[in-house]
């Protein structure tokens, strides 16, 4: 494998990881844009999502690496798995908001953020105590088709991940930009009070943001499983922190920013792992986080929100 091939290979890996981080970062950005809340429960909604997906796939008879499917059965299985996971996680997010965060909406200070840390811990430990801390083999029903790009290898699963992530993000962009509810969402992010007076049901908008964000996190959890062929209860923390870094890098509250940030972080992780050392990847990513916050707190695409005083 030549240097160029190695680079291309890491790029392919990085963009795939990045697609996953982008989906996860969108959830942070949507909720932050409206509530100015860092939602730590998002970390483990992602993790729960990967286990839900595992359960759904197994329920459809897709186990481990043994089941390989093609054609319509494959498409069907994928559509059902994504839909079920996303709906489950979306509802989970809405329930968390409705019962645990909404009562704190008008409480100043870190109360809501602390609650999300608590929720994250509860989700993590419910999985730990029921399913356990072991790694679980994640099904890979895709046929082993690969394409050679020079010496680098592009697998079908990466193409699938890119396609799904693009579809989801395209759908979100359309929703936010061109639907009535999307417009209400943007208005609420700008000024909830004014939006409410213009007849926007702010609470419904927030629940929608939680639903979409959590659903995308669930999709991210499924993609994690497909990409690594493996899942465990501790995947939420690292992926979540990286996705949050991605959201900040792109400009928190900014939807295209989160997508861009995710891909950048994914590529950095792959390149850092490929050229430097895997064990230092986290240090590199956190350093980027700190550097962005210090040098350009608004992120790459974001505008600094006016001080709400």
């Amino acid at each position, binding site marked *: 494998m030549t240097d160029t091939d190695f680079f291309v290979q890491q790029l392919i890996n990085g963009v795939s990881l990045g697609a996953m981080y982008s989906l996860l970062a969108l959830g942070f950005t949507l909720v932050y844009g409206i509530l*100015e*809340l*860092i939602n730590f429960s998002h970390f483990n909604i992602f993790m729960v999502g990967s286990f839900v997906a595992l359960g759904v796939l197994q329920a459809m008879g897709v186990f481990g690496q043994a089941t390989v499917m093609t054609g319509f059965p494959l498409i069907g299985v994928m559509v059902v798995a994504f839909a079920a996971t996303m709906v489950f996680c979306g509802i989970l997010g809405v329930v968390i908001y409705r019962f*645990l965060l909404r*009562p*704190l909406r008008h*409480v100043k*200070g*870190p*109360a*809501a*953020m*602390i*609650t999300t*840390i*608590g*929720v*994250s*811990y*509860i989700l*993590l*430990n*419910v999985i*730990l*105590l029921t399913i356990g801390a072991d790694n679980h083999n994640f099904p890979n029903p895709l046929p082993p088709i690969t394409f050679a790009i020079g010496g680098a290898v592009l697998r079908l699963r990466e193409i699938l991940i890119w396609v799904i992530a693009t579809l989801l993000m395209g759908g979100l962009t359309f929703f936010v930009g061109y639907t009535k509810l999307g417009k209400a969402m943007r208005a609420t992010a700008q000024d909830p009070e004014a939006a409410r007076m213009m007849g926007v049901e702010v609470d419904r908008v927030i629940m929608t943001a939680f639903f979409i964000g959590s659903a995308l996190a669930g999709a991210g959890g499924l993609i994690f499983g497909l990409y690594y062929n493996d899942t465990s209860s501790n995947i939420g*923390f690292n992926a979540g*922190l990286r996705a*949050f*870094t991605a959201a*900040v890098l792109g400009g928190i509250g900014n939807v295209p920013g989160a997508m861009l940030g995710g891909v950048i972080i994914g590529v950095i992780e792959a390149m850092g792992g490929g050229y430097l050392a895997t*064990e*230092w990847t*986290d*240090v590199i990513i*956190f350093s980027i*986080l*700190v550097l962005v*916050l*210090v040098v350009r*707190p608004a992120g790459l695409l974001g505008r600094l929100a*006016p001080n709400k*005083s």
Partner: protein
Amino acid sequence: MVEAVMTALGRPFARIPLERRKQLGLLLLTVFILIFPLIHDDDADIDSMANAAAYATLALGLNIVVGFAGLLDLGYAAFFAIGAYLYGILTAYQVLPTWSGFWTPLAAVGLVEKINQGGPDLVHFTLSFWIALPLAAVVAAFFGVLFGAPTLRLRGDYLAIVTLGFGEIVPIVARNVDSVTNGAAGLNGVQAPKLFGWSFGVSATPYYYVGVALVAFLIFVSIRLRDSRIGRAWMAIREDEIAASAMGVNLVRLKLLAFAIGAAFAGMTGVFYVAKLQTATPELFGFPVSTMILVMVVLGGMGSVWGVVLGAVILQLLQSWFLKGLSNWINDFGVMVGSDWLQQVDLVRSIELIFGIILVVMMLFRRDGLIPATRKTAALTFDAQHAEVRRGGFSGLESIGTHENETGNALEVKNVVVRFGGLTALNKVNIVVPAGGVVAVIGPNGSGKSTLFNVITGLTHADEGSILFHGAEILGLQPHQIAEAGVARTFQNIRLFPNLTVLENVLVGQHTRLSTSFAGAILRLPKAKAEESRARRWALDIIALFGNRLSPRIMQQVNGLSYANRRRVEIARALATRPKILLLDEPTAGMNPAETLELAEQIKSLHALGLTILIIEHKLDVVTKLADNVIVLDHGEKIAEGLPEVVRRDDAVLTAYLGRAAREAVNAA
């Protein structure tokens, strides 16, 4: 519920004064803690109490950062790790340089010893535990400042995530730099502390006493700081950063101080903990540990010194006694009924689930924790509330003293331009306030009045121009520097520190005029003591300006006051900064005509004492009564200036307020 139990327990002793009861309680507690290892001879239990002490010190440190200063630090365990590895590396057989003459003097004072493991002579570090404690505090505080400096100017929630990142990096470094830390396997053979040649060994009792002493020391430090100028400034930052800086609190310095002190507490605890455990692995310092400490602080009560200690002890007992005991009981029950599943139950494993539930439940139902930091003072009785209003006198005011009638111009705003994006909020505005004068700024909403105040007090950045205060440029200074120079203000939307009392709010105003240092606050030297009582007297003098409007309410939290009283507190707080010029932003907004008149009188008497005043006001009768000069702003430009009567009839002013048609109607009439 807690109060109910406390009241019930306290009832038989109700005849003993509260202060004395507290002292007695403290004495009993101290005696019990001191004799606990003697009456309860169980090494495991003493050990878990020693652990509880370590957690309590961590909780006390995090409480300074989160509870006092309101900075959410999610990577607090990093500082714990720094202290632990400092002592670990400097006593374990991990880093062993080759012996040379350089080490001989260090060996003479007992910091190193020569060892031989076959081969050349090597250096073994033998740093004394008692030196390591303060050293770790200093090193951890240094890292606190290093981590804090780039991030503390960020918004609070960003700080949380950055500290979380730092909290992750430190264990990663510990894991990866295995030549120094022995990586994931952890340090081995950390030296036990020695006292006068006697080694602590592995018995839990000596560690218990060291831990208790550490907790006692840190409680003492926490309380002393809390009740000082520094503690008040921290709480002001927690309540409202912008108001705190406008009252002269140096945000960066005080936040860094909180971070450094919190880190120092954790560093010392790290030394203690690793000496007790005699090993250190990266797992001891990860995110779960930071969260656990946060749970202790939240459970006990953010900002409550005794609360967080209680929180730490409760959680430790929950883990080591209650859950274990309950699990054993369930397992025995399982044996009895022949259920395998019940025999397997281990509730200790669910401790993190319980942490999560505690966080959520406390936030939803009891955000102030088990022992709230602030006790709600009972509201005034009906009679007290409706007592005849005494308008207050100005007899105490002579002691304001610092603002004699000065000559020349107090404030000169020259050609100031402020742009927000495409909007020009102030366009080449010129304003002169002569020393000892009263100048009013009026103008329709959105004309730039509050922006003008924000520029003068350093809260908003100006694009062009210059602002001279008694001849010195203040444009570009930090808000706290401007406050220190003698510019005090109130805010249009009232920015008090809602959870502090009236008295505390006014005391924060004096921040820049007091000088008690960190050490002075802890040691409470005579000078600091005298300064503190002077500050309190001065605060009471100012509060007395408003007669019995505020005086009976000094111990009440300001968020329970009426709107008019909150405005009065804000003016009192501004006066407490000993200003040369007072900027009042719509001081009578929301007051009824009688209250308005009363306040106007009070402002007039402040002016009579020599205070220069710049006032934004909509009520023209107030303006006419007070101002020597009126400046009218519209769309960011000065459209008129002059005596109140003149300005009232000015064409441009009438147009700005009423529109062209109405202006013509007025002129025709």
